[in-house]
């Protein structure tokens, strides 16, 4: 069975190569056929892998190392991509899948451009498949086959983590096709409206799942690691944040290219960089050059291969860029105070923010080269990334109303007054009455400013309230994303500055108080699951007449010889009461269980905000009724 999958993968590499050759020779139809057939055989190949996991075929080395008969079915399936080799197979499948979808749907009226884009996507598929087949093959057999398998890392046996990798990969790999479009556009020397329209759609198709992928990973870290936090500025997290920031910059810059034929070279550069940063992310995660708190099987040799791939792709695309970019047209004229100026500021800020993340992530490596072992943590990012991004968030509600070319800024005094009033109110109420810090009050004001600004802009564009629902979908897409951004800021500020945490050590029947909650340990009970056993605490939490039962667990997975923490979360309107169970300790002659208790205010608002950003992206993907006939218009030109 798995041999058929192995064979299919070789077939896929041959078809991808054919796609590359036909594509670069400008044969659109043949390249498209090759792309779709490559996807069909790669999908079959991936299915044989899933099948091996589902049937617990331990003669396949990958299954033997990462699965177990007792594991629940959903984690057997998710186990396919919960390891290095399987996740690379998924990477290949998604790369080829994007090519196939593009082959079936692209309709710009430019045969040679489309053929070349498919051709380059085919070559990217060849690269990914070569890495899969020759550097990390999931198709290898074991002889003799073991009777029982190892286990998927128990931390990964979790619903959010089951769908986190596919989402993240749709994002990372989605940028591969944008890379292909950029290279094809540069080869033709035509980075114009038609090109930009195509890139904008694919940018949304990558950005929206990337947003959800990051959010799922963050939510998982929040409840599974038991540390109460949702972002740790860990290299693995930063690796996903950098392509996201560049992708966000691209989404804004490509609009200028689409509407005004401006920023052509810059947009093409961002389109290339988004994918290069995705590969850089894979390199940082897989090579083990950086310390991460998240568990990944690392292999320095694979890291070297990824680094070579990064250099090859980067060299090719940036070389093409250096050759073609100077000849690109500048588009319509504009002044600094205009929508173009505002979007340029957005781009500069997002890229500088991404660079500060890059510096903070790579700095330990640089220092190590000089013989010093250091690490860079949250304080660095709070001092650089946060203020830089704040700059653009303050401006966003004001500048989004600016017109193309040259904006009328007569109303700026009103904007300044509204902003100042908002900050003053939050400072007075927040610092004066609620006793929060000035920084927190400012952050809250900023979040409200963003949400209010997004709604104000919707109102401005609708002119009369009745037309709000007749606005184009892309306006709604933008509004949702900007409201989400504001909600995220509110949630992040409140959660970070208002988090309360304490440690309790309780004997059975004992109680303690955290953040106004009286918490009693009723009992500790030993329970069993399909592939784990656990100590489960039953706690009763009481505050002002509210009562909640929380049951945090400490699980032990015997097959993996590994314990995990299962936190218990009680949702209140104001935030999460969050309890993680620790170990038993002998203190003062009795056995006490230790608990880490957090109160995380408004943490759901934060995740709701990120969800809205992702939904905004998906909404923008939905084809609007009016935009159904662009190819005809282009063909008639």
């Amino acid at each position, binding site marked *: 069975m798995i041999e058929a999958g192995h064979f299919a993968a070789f077939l896929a590499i041959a078809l991808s190569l054919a796609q590359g050759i036909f594509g670069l020779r400008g044969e659109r139809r043949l390249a498209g056929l090759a792309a779709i057939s490559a996807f069909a055989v790669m999908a079959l190949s991936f299915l044989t892998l899933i099948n091996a996991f589902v049937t617990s075929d331990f003669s396949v080395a990958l299954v033997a190392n990462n699965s177990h008969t007792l594991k629940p079915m959903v984690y057997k399936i998710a186990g396919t991509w919960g390891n290095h080799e399987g996740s690379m197979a998924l990477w290949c499948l998604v790369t080829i899948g994007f090519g196939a979808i593009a082959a079936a749907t692209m309709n710009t009226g430019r045969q040679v451009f489309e053929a070349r884009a498919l051709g380059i996507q085919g070559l990217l598929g060849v690269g990914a498949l070569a890495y899969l087949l020759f550097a990390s093959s999931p198709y290898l057999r074991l002889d003799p086959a073991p009777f029982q398998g190892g286990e998927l890392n128990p931390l990964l046996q979790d619903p959010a983590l089951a769908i986190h990798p596919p989402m993240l990969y749709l994002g990372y790999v989605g940028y591969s096709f944008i890379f292909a479009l950029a290279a094809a556009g540069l080869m033709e020397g035509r980075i114009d409206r038609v090109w930009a329209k195509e890139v904008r759609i694919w940018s949304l198709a990558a950005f929206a799942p990337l947003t959800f992928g990051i959010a799922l990973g963050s939510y998982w870290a929040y409840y599974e690691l038991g540390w109460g936090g949702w972002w740790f500025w860990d290299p693995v997290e930063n690796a996903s944040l950098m392509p996201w920031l560049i992708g966000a910059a691209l989404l804004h810059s490509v609009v200028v290219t689409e509407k005004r034929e401006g920023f052509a070279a810059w947009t093409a550069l961002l389109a290339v960089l988004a994918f290069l940063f995705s590969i850089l992310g894979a390199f940082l995660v897989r090579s083990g050059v950086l310390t991460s708190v998240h568990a990944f099987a690392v292999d320095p040799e694979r890291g070297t291969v990824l680094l070579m791939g990064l250099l090859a792709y980067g060299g090719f695309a940036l070389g093409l860029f250096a050759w073609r970019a100077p000849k690109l047209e500048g588009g319509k004229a504009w002044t*600094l105070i205009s929508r173009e100026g505002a979007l340029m500021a957005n781009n*500069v800020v997002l890229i500088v923010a991404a*660079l500060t993340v890059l510096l903070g992530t790579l700095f330990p490596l640089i220092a190590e080269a000089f013989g010093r072992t*250091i690490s860079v943590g949250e304080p660095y990012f709070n001092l*650089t990334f946060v203020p830089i991004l704040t700059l653009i968030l303050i401006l966003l509600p004001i500048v989004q109303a600016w017109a193309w070319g040259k904006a009328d800024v007569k109303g700026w005094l009103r904007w300044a007054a509204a902003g100042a009033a908002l900050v003053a109110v939050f400072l007075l109420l927040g610092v004066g009455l609620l006793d929060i810090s000035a920084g927190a009050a400012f952050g809250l004001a900023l979040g409200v400013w963003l949400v209010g600004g997004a709604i104000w802009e919707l109102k401005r564009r609708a002119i009369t309230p009745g037309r709000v629902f007749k606005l184009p979908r892309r306006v709604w897409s933008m509004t949702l994303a900007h409201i989400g951004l504001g909600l995220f800021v509110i949630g992040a500020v409140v959660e970070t500055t208002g988090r309360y945490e304490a*440690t309790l*050590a309780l004997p059975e029947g004992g109680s303690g108080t955290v953040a106004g909650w009286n918490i009693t340990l009723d009992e500790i009970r030993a329970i069993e699951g399909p592939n784990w056993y656990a100590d489960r605490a039953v706690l009763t939490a009481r505050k002002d007449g509210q009562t909640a039962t929380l049951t945090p667990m400490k699980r032990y997975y015997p097959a993996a010889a590994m314990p995990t923490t299962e936190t218990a979360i009680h949702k209140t309107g104001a935030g999460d009461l969050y309890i993680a169970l620790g170990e038993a300790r002998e203190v003062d002659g009795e056995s*006490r269980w*230790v608990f880490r208790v957090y109160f995380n205010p408004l943490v759901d608002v934060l995740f709701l905000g990120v969800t809205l950003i992702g939904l905004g992206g998906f909404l923008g993907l939905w084809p609007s009724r009016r935009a159904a006939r662009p190819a005809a218009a282009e063909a008639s030109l």
Partner: protein
Amino acid sequence: MRARTRRLYTFGLAALLVLGAAILAFFALRENANLFYTPEVLAEKGLPREGKEVKVGGWVEPGTLTYSDGGTTMQFIVIDNSPNIITVRFNGVAPDLFREGQGVVATGSFAPDGTFTAKQLLAKHDENYQPRELKPLEAGG
């Protein structure tokens, strides 16, 4: 506005922002890059400034783990291949794979008496994973 003037302004503004970010990053890194101390490094270099956030790593010496503050604080001794030690205190729950005799990396700061108060503890994450800072120790041991 002429294209050249605009380009000048654009690059000027961008350069200003990049410069600002670079200055921020420089000071942020100087203040917040955490140095890594093993007991041996501590003996060589002496104590860092009080309250300065650093990392400490080594092996948890067996038999030294004790509890105080009603059980909420743990205290243990970290050793490496040198005769030196560091005493670490941590208020909280031990990481899942924290064991006496195993590797641990703590983030926190030193008190003037040389005891280390951790605000975060990391232990071996799973069977395949080892905090990277400890690899040289393992090779030497």
